[in-house]
């Protein structure tokens, strides 16, 4: 069959093209290593935080301010650097180079003293509230002397509090870029440390406790989530961008015309191109799974379902590429159109970050992306080993493969080039 002849020819031609091999295999691999390291590593993310402690006496930080900094460190969320109290934060930022995100936590002078005083006030307030609650709800069941004693105690405490309740809460200040996504996370962590401190200072024990459990029975790594996304994305870009530019280049340099003058049928030319992309997709998958396994410890297991899905995905995206190259004449335009289609499909698909991080309307849009269905189905099969959950993804890709293969055959010109 002539499609096999074309497949062999294109594969040989591709294997001998350093640029082709780089962009089809090595570049995706490079991105896998970079993204895998950034998003898929075992270590949790740490946020840099400058702490400027003004609560210093005799050259030493007060015990409470020191304990607060240690509590921040114990969250394992921060890379803390202490900043001398005489440094002006605005000047400090001005003299820094680079585009790193800066966060400053400022502990005010008198933090310990005010916190301790405030804790006494708060404790007294709680006692007073408790006495009022007892009088209001249980006063009717008490004898006269008990009620008088409690009311007297309440009045005495209230009078004393009115005289002494001037202590303000010490205010810890967090200075950070409000537009940075990480700021909300940092705020949350600092807020929970402040809350824990508030409770400890008044000697309160937890009224409500909280614990979290892993949803999966097995412990999945971030790289387990991302690997199918990377595979799906790069099969898509190779198909849509790679095939479009290659085919338009073949048309520009006369190879398509030369072949169209032989008995080679248009159908065989298209199938040969799709077969070559499928081979490329497989090669890419094998290498990425291997690298994911060796470097990131990913436990992806390609089985017969995964192989069928990868074939379907390769056919889908290369047929989209063939369809585009069917009506785009110019190589530069083909690359531009390919990129304009491929990159939104890729970034909106949730391949590089979970869809939950995106706004709700974009999440709805993402579910129309064939890349979303591809990587989602691939993840279900290769990682979670639930092929039954991949049926929708399979069906979407298979339908698109049929539609676009027919469109490619219809739109590709084999005459009057």
């Amino acid at each position: 069959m002539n499609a096999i002849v074309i497949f062999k020819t294109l594969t040989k031609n591709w294997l001998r093209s350093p640029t082709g091999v780089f962009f089809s295999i090595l570049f995706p691999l490079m991105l896998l290593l970079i993204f895998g390291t950034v998003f898929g590593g075992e270590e949790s993310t740490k946020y840099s935080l400058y702490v400027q402690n003004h609560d210093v006496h005799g050259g030493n930080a007060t015990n409470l301010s020191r304990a607060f900094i240690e509590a921040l460190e114990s969250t394992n969320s921060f890379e803390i650097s202490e900043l001398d109290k005489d440094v002006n934060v605005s000047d400090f930022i001005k003299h820094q180079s680079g585009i790193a995100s800066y966060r400053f936590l400022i502990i005010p002078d008198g933090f310990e003293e005010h916190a301790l005083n405030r804790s006494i006030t708060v404790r007294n307030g709680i006692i007073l509230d408790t006495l009022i609650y007892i009088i209001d709800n249980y006063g009717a069941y008490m004898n006269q002397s008990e009620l008088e004693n409690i009311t007297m105690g309440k009045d005495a405490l209230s009078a004393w509090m009115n005289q002494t309740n001037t202590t303000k809460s010490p205010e810890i200040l967090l200075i950070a870029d409000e537009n940075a996504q990480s700021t909300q996370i940092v705020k949350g962590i600092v807020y929970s440390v402040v809350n824990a401190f508030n409770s400890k200072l008044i000697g309160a024990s937890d009224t409500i406790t909280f614990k979290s459990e892993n949803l999966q029975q097995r412990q999945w790594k971030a790289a387990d989530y991302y690997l199918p996304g990377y595979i799906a994305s790069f099969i898509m870009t190779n198909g849509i961008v790679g095939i479009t530019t290659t085919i338009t280049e073949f048309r520009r340099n006369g190879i398509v015309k030369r072949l169209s003058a032989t008995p080679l049928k248009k159908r065989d030319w298209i199938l040969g191109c799709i077969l070559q992309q499928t081979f490329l997709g497989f090669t890419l998958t094998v290498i990425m799974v291997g690298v994911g396994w060796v470097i990131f410890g990913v436990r992806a297991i390609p089985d017969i379902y995964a192989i069928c899905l990868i074939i379907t995905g390769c056919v889908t995206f290369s047929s989209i590429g063939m369809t585009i190259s069917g009506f785009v004449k110019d190589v530069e335009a083909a690359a531009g159109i390919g990129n304009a289609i491929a990159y939104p499909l890729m970034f909106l698909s949730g391949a590089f970050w979970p869809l939950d991080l995106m706004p709700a309307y974009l999440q709805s849009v993402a579910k129309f992306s064939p890349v979303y269905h591809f990587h989602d189905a691939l993840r279900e099969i290769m990682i979670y080993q639930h092929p039954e959950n991949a049926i929708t993804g399979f069906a979407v890709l298979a339908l698109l493969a049929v539609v676009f293969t027919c469109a490619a055959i219809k739109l590709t010109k084999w005459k009057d080039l």
Partner: protein
Amino acid sequence: MKKVIEVEHLVKFYGNLRAVNDISFDVYAGEIFTLVGPNGAGKTTTTEILECIKTPTSGIVKVLGMTVPGDEEKIKRRIGVIPQEFNAFERLTVRENVKLIADIYGVKEDIRRYLEMLGLWESRDKKFRTLSGGMKRRVGICMAVVSNPEILFLDEPTTGLDPEARRETWDVIRKLKKSGKTIFLTTHYMEEAEKLSDRVAMIMNGRIVAIGKVKELIEKHGGGFKVLSGEKVIGMFATRREAARCALQLYEQDKEAEMIEPSMDDVFLNLVHKKINERGELL
């Protein structure tokens, strides 16, 4: 003689542009038939219609007795083609490129014979991109003949080649004619048409302005034999004998004498009143 190509009232439009304007000609088995004319005259369009890669707007086109459009698949199996600005897979070797076409045609025979015939055997493992222009054209011809076609379409096979590579290509074309192939050639080089062709059709603005055997065309439209003395034209003569006599007389008078034979350049100049430069443009 058997007609292998028959063209009657062929017309081809590109939008509003009439690229081929009601042309008719026949090509006979075993001859070299050349369509000669400047760039944009309609040579390639006509050739590509015969090669079944373009659709005619109107007219009757028959190749090997089969009709275009209609019998394209059958025709393609029996013809060989080198398109204009021929190219092949750059990173494939000479042998791999020729083998590709052989495989498409289902040729079982060893391709070595063809590589040797075109002088490519020594270079069989060289990548196509590393070859000289002349060698690339030979690869193109080899790809065209590997299916042992009855008609070979060579669309400007020597354009852009240096004189030596051009002469090498001419030798190959002559060799192919000797082997019994019918050759349909296009060129803008009048010298090439004159030296290689049995018959020539001169095409201009989509119309055939003259057609016939080279000798007949030159006799009819060449303007005769020119006798010069220095830069000065002494006379034009219908026959070589008369011109030679005139030149001899000048020589006997101790004058410079040169006799110039009419050529296809003169035919074109006399019919179109323009010349064609090296790049195929009208002057």
